[in-house]
């Protein structure tokens, strides 16, 4: 009995040693790269323009046009629209 156990032990040892140097053919998938860039939400650009004049009662009268532009990349683009609107209603402004 002792001889049979010893024989099995040798066989197991042999198998372990035999397979120790075998390359593992499993495909190890790499983990997806994490993009650490902070993405800020897009802020709509707002511009307000006011025209002022003195009225017949002596008071200051004003008209204000405000433009909110969701696709403008600069405030100046929103202001350009506001100026253009003001010129529509007060030509020469």
């Amino acid at each position, binding site marked *: 009995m002792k001889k049979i156990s010893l024989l099995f032990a040798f066989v197991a040892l042999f198998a372990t040693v035999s397979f120790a140097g075998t390359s593992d053919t499993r495909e190890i998938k790499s983990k997806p790269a994490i993009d650490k860039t902070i993405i800020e939400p897009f802020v709509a650009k707002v511009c307000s323009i006011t025209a002022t004049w003195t009225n*017949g*009662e*002596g*008071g200051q*009268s004003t*008209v*204000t046009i405000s*433009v909110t532009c969701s696709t403008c990349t600069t405030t100046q683009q929103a202001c350009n629209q506001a100026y253009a609107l003001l010129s529509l209603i007060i030509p020469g402004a």
Partner: protein
Amino acid sequence: MKKITLISFLIIHITALGQNYLVEYEVLNSNNIIKAELFINDTISLFKIIPNKDAKNFETRIFVKNKIDEKAYFTENIMNVKLFVTDSLNNMRWTLTNDTATILDFSCFSATTTFRGRNYTAFYTQSIQAQDGPWKFGGLPGLILSVKSGDNFIMWKAVKVVSDYSKVPELPIIQKENYISWNDFVLKYRVTIDKFIKMARSNGTLSNEASAKIKLDVVEIFYPELQTGEGIKF
């Protein structure tokens, strides 16, 4: 015929002097002070803004009250378009109140009214028997020397009173124009704003991805959607 009658009336009543007064007012509005003059006699009064010395492109506006036909004649702007407008002199319903004040050594009594969207408190003196005052104000048993809006938007305050004023003021050149009523002026204003809003989108001045608001601030509130809150959004 109406215009000829108006011209003749104004010429006759400016030259035939009775007891005339010249009152200088200061108009306080939005941290701004402007001087104005009110010429009064028995049948007409002329209210004129005096431009500041450094004012550029200032257009003189004269406000005429004809006490015989009980109408005011003046110019108004719809943005940069000038219109000639008439208005009734009897638009204000006053409530006499108990406050008193002394203005330029005149004892004054108080009264309140609500006129075109604003509440006003006036102080008038019975020492000057003219149911008159600055701009459209009048109808109290004495000359109004001070009037202020309850929201502090605007105030007119007399700073000088000259009695027996003999210098005849320059007659405003208004007789050739057609006058529209105040109600017609308000209608025209609404139409102008509506056209502007439609044009802003249709001709591409306002891009499809943008929105806009327009807000007007003037003394008389006659178009609440345009003049209160954030104005009109489009």
